[in-house]
Every structure is written in structure tokens, then in C-alpha cells.
């Protein structure tokens, strides 16, 4: 087919994609530069970067930014370490491996809202939760997880939800690892850890970077878990950027400031992505 024709045939779908991206983006950018509060519809007009200043000087902004980074960072570490460990554990054939795999993957298919409710009401609840029952059985004071360790609780929930994703990706790529290489390493005297560092980890470099990038995109915008359980509290101790933007738009009704926060979140995501790609990019060359 001639290249010009191909380009013309592709054009409509690319145009739709462009619209899909550019319209919300430009509207967000536009809203972020005007006075736009739903409570005061009469106050309008261009105000430059004031909305960004308001958002950045909000006392919740600093904690929210730090919470976001802690949340993303710890969930990434936990899911990748656990994902590696579990996928290696279930790589060898054993009785019931198929069922074990399905069960390990299943948390990924549960809606974040539902899983957050399960964690909140059935596991972490200080009166009726399973953890409280364990503590009482041991004669200990039940922990009020969501009140005492709100961010940690969110990290646990999100990690529980996303470890299966890491397991799924690592499990499939472990299947493609060359068994003779491992046998050669066994004959060379390499034990489990030596084989892990020298063969398995380099083999998994690419899947690990994929898991890192995909998870990062999703974790920067974690919302349901926070909304359902802690509502960003106590105080702002479990508020992340997404939740702060939500507060600005849906509780303060300030669309302008919320849009400025949205633009900031886009920039942050790009910066983090840039660093991550740089960091894992070096390992991607094999």
C-alpha cells in the first residue's frame, strides 16, 4: 500500500485520540488559570498562576506530596519484592499449582472500593475485625489501624491488591527462563542466591521495569482506597495529591485550584516516570 494512503487511513483514529487527550488537558490548563469557584459563580476572569500558588501554599500540599511519594515508593518496593518471592516459590511444579496461581492472582480482579471495604470492616476494624480478634486472643489491645497507622494501612491494602499483578508478570517470564542455564550454574557451584542474583534477576530486568512503570502510573492516582477508608485523615496523614485535588474540587468547590493541582500531578508523574525510566533503562539493554 502506498504510504500516503496509509497515513490518510490512519488519520481519523489518530485525530480522535488527539481530541480525546487534548480536550480534557487543555480544559484543565484553561481552568487552572481562571477564577472558577462553584460557590462564587460571579467571580471569574483570568488570574495567571494564582491558582498554582494557592494550591502549592495550601498547608496540606507538602504532606500530600510526601504521602504520595511514600505511598508510591513503598507499594512499589513491597509488590516487587513479594511478587518476586512468590513467583519464584510457585515456579516449580507442585500439586495444586494451578489453583494456587488462580488464588494468588485473584485479588487483582477485586474492585479497589470493595477490597478497601473488606480491609476496613472485616480485617482492620478495631471492634469486629479479624486482626482485632487475633490481638484479643493473644491478650493484646486491638490496634486501631486506620486511626493509628492510616498511611501504612493504605499501603497494605494497595500492596495486597497489586502484588498479584507483579506475580502474574514475573510468573510468566520465569517460565521462559532457560533451565539449562540454571543447571550449568548448578554445576559451576552456584547456590540459590547466586543463581538468583546472576541469572534470575537479570532475566527479570525487563518485566520488573514494566511492573514499576505500570504500577507507578496507577499508584500516583490512588483514590478509592483513601476515600472509602480514611478520607485522607486523621488530619492529612493519609491525604495524597489525588485526594487533595478531590477536596479542592468537591469540598471547597474550587475548580480553578483543583485544575492547577491536576496539572501539577501531571508534571509530577512525568518527572517520576523520567527518573524511573532512566534508572531501569540501563538494565533494559539485554
Amino acid at each position, binding site marked *: 500500500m502506498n504510504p500516503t494512503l496509509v497515513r490518510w487511513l490512519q488519520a481519523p483514529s489518530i485525530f480522535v485520540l488527539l481530541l480525546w487527550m487534548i480536550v480534557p488537558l487543555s480544559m484543565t490548563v484553561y481552568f487552572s488559570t481562571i477564577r472558577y469557584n462553584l460557590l462564587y459563580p460571579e467571580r471569574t476572569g483570568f488570574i495567571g498562576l494564582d491558582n498554582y500558588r494557592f494550591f502549592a501554599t495550601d498547608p496540606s500540599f507538602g504532606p500530600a506530596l510526601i504521602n504520595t511519594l511514600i505511598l508510591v515508593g513503598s507499594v512499589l518496593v513491597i509488590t516487587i519484592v513479594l511478587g518476586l518471592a512468590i513467583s519464584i516459590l510457585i515456579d516449580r511444579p507442585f500439586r495444586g499449582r494451578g489453583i494456587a496461581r488462580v488464588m494468588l492472582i485473584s485479588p487483582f480482579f477485586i474492585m479497589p472500593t470493595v477490597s478497601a471495604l473488606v480491609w476496613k470492616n472485616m480485617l482492620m476494624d478495631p471492634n469486629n475485625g479479624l486482626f482485632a480478634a487475633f490481638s484479643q486472643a493473644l491478650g493484646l489491645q486491638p490496634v486501631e489501624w486506620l486511626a493509628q497507622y492510616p498511611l501504612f494501612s493504605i499501603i497494605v491494602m494497595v500492596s495486597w491488591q497489586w502484588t498479584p499483578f507483579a506475580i502474574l508478570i514475573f510468573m510468566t517470564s520465569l517460565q521462559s527462563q532457560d533451565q539449562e542455564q540454571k543447571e550449568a550454574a*548448578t554445576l559451576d*557451584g552456584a547456590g540459590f542466591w547466586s543463581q538468583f542474583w546472576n541469572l534470575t534477576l537479570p532475566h527479570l530486568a525487563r518485566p520488573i521495569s514494566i511492573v514499576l512503570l505500570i504500577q507507578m502510573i496507577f499508584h500516583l492516582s490512588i483514590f478509592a482506597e483513601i476515600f472509602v477508608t480514611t478520607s485522607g485523615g486523621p488530619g492529612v496523614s493519609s491525604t495524597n495529591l489525588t485526594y487533595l485535588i478531590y477536596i479542592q474540587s468537591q469540598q471547597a468547590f474550587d475548580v480553578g485550584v483543583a485544575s492547577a493541582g491536576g496539572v501539577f500531578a501531571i508534571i509530577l508523574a512525568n518527572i517520576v516516570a523520567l527518573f524511573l525510566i532512566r534508572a531501569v533503562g540501563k538494565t533494559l539493554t*539485554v
Partner: protein
Amino acid sequence: MAGLTIRNLVKRYGDVQVMHGVDLDIEDGEFVVFVGPSGCGKSTLLRMIAGLEEISDGTVSIGDREVNDVAPSKRGVAMVFQTYALYPHMTVYENMAFGLRQAKTPKDEIDRRVTSAAEVLQINDYLERSPRNLSGGQRQRVAIGRAIVRDPEVFLFDEPLSNLDASLRVQTRLEIARLHERLKSTMIYVTHDQVEAMTLADKIVVLRDGRVEQVGSPIELYERPANSFVAQFIGSPQMNFFTGGDVATGPAGYVDGDTLGIRPEHLIACDAGAALVSGKLELVEQLGEYALAHLITAQGSEFIAKMEKPPAEAYGDTLHFTAIPERLHVFSPDGLSKRG
């Protein structure tokens, strides 16, 4: 360096027994080839020696030491794998040094051994390259180099040439023969290719269904196969088998029900009166150096005669052959050679 002794070796996977009491003695410095059709257990036997498969019963001893419960890396064996199994994320140098590093060998000692092995194999120019930038033949050399640096008592080769193209295979075969000449260490080599077996081996072990069919030098197996399976497996084209009515007058000891085996290269054209076997000419393959005549007896047994030049007769004509008595193989109905 050391010899190897295998006693009553058995391998079971669950209820399925795949190795049925193998006994084998391998002398120090011998080049031994395990040969047999696929699924005969030759690779399993090699892997049991290496320690990659568990031994269900019986013993493997290297030198005077029983190694059943010795870790693979402590057995003094090094293995060259069919897929080379080079470590893809390491350079050629690191690949060869890996085993020594695991054994905490001093750095200058590692350097000395890798360099000298690389020289032997002529791979010193690409020590810093990674395996994916090497050709198949070069990878093969690196895999052999990785075995050499460990200075093992026994080298194990698992079909090392099967991933190479035909010309490279011949070349690498010669190099392995030279390497053995040079290192004089015990080598065990698994292949399904009888040409490799014949050319490389001091001693061939023919396996079938987890049993040793015959052990002997290549020429012994060629001249005195213990049974019809070995007779068929060694030699190319395969030995011809004739039964009952195919044979005009059998040699001494040939009774009804026996099978007469004659190799294609041992059939001599003659006239009808002197014929041992006769057949209708079906096809001639001309190979320049010699011709292969495909024939079929009155009874319907197909056979091949290797001739210096293609026969003058037309397709469909009958040709007559004889052979000198020393070249005849008589097998009783159970397949065993009657020559003993």
C-alpha cells in the same frame, strides 16, 4: 583425572522406570560415547553422572569416590550443554570465570586459567563480548571453554553439535577430538549421531530403552554387533536384514527363522548361480564416489547395495549378490547375534 564406575544404576520417575540397572566401567582418559535413539536414556544417564538427576538406585563413582550424595559442583565434572547454556548477561570472560568465582579462586589464578583456555580454543579476541554477539560455533567454544577452566576430572558433552550446521559440525567434531588428544581427560559424550560416535569414541555405549545393548570400540561394534539393534544402529546406510526365502543358501549355523544381516558395503555383485541374495532393482542413488542401489527381494524385503559404480541393469531387472562369510551376521529370532 579419573575413571568412572557405574553399578546397577536405576532411574525411576514415580512408578515409571526409565533406567534399568546400568553397569559401566570407564577408564581414565577414555573418550566414551553414549549413543542410541531418542528416549533411550542416554541423556538421563549423563545427567545422573553430572548430578542433575537424582539416582534412584545403584552407584556412580568417579575415581574411587562414590558421588551419589556429592553436590554436582563437587563431583569434578564439567558439562557442555546442547543449547550451550551460556549466561546471557555476562561477557565471555565472566561466563568462563563464573565457576571459579563461585569457588572463591584468587583473581590472578582465574585470569590465568581463563586466558589459557581461551588461547586453546582461539576465543581470546572476544572475551569481552556478550554471548548474543557470537555465532553458534563461537558460543560452542565458549561453552567448552567454561568447562575447561574448571579443570574437571570428567568432561560431559550433551549432544553438543546438534545445534550447529553441517559443515561447522564436522569442524567442531575434529576440534573436540583434538581437545581430547591434548587434555587426555576422561570425556563422556552423548549423541544420537552414529557418525559422531564412530569418529570420536574410544568406546561406544549403545543404549536402548534404559538398557545397555553393547559396549565396545567402534570397530568392534561395526564388525561384531551383539544383536540386530546394534547392527542396525551402527553403520550407514543401515545393515540389510534377510529372512527365510530371501536367502538362497545360508551360511553355517543359519537355520530357518534366523535373520541374516549383510551391510550394504559388503554385498558383492555376482551371477545367478553364486547368488546368496537376489532382488529386483528399484532405484539407484548416484553419489559420485559410490552408488546406492535400492532393491527388493522376491519376498518383498527391501535392501540396499553399495556399489562402486551404478549397475548397468535397468529398473525392474534382477540383480544377484553374494558376500564373504566373515562379513555375514546371523541373528537368532530373539535378535541376538549367533557369532557370540
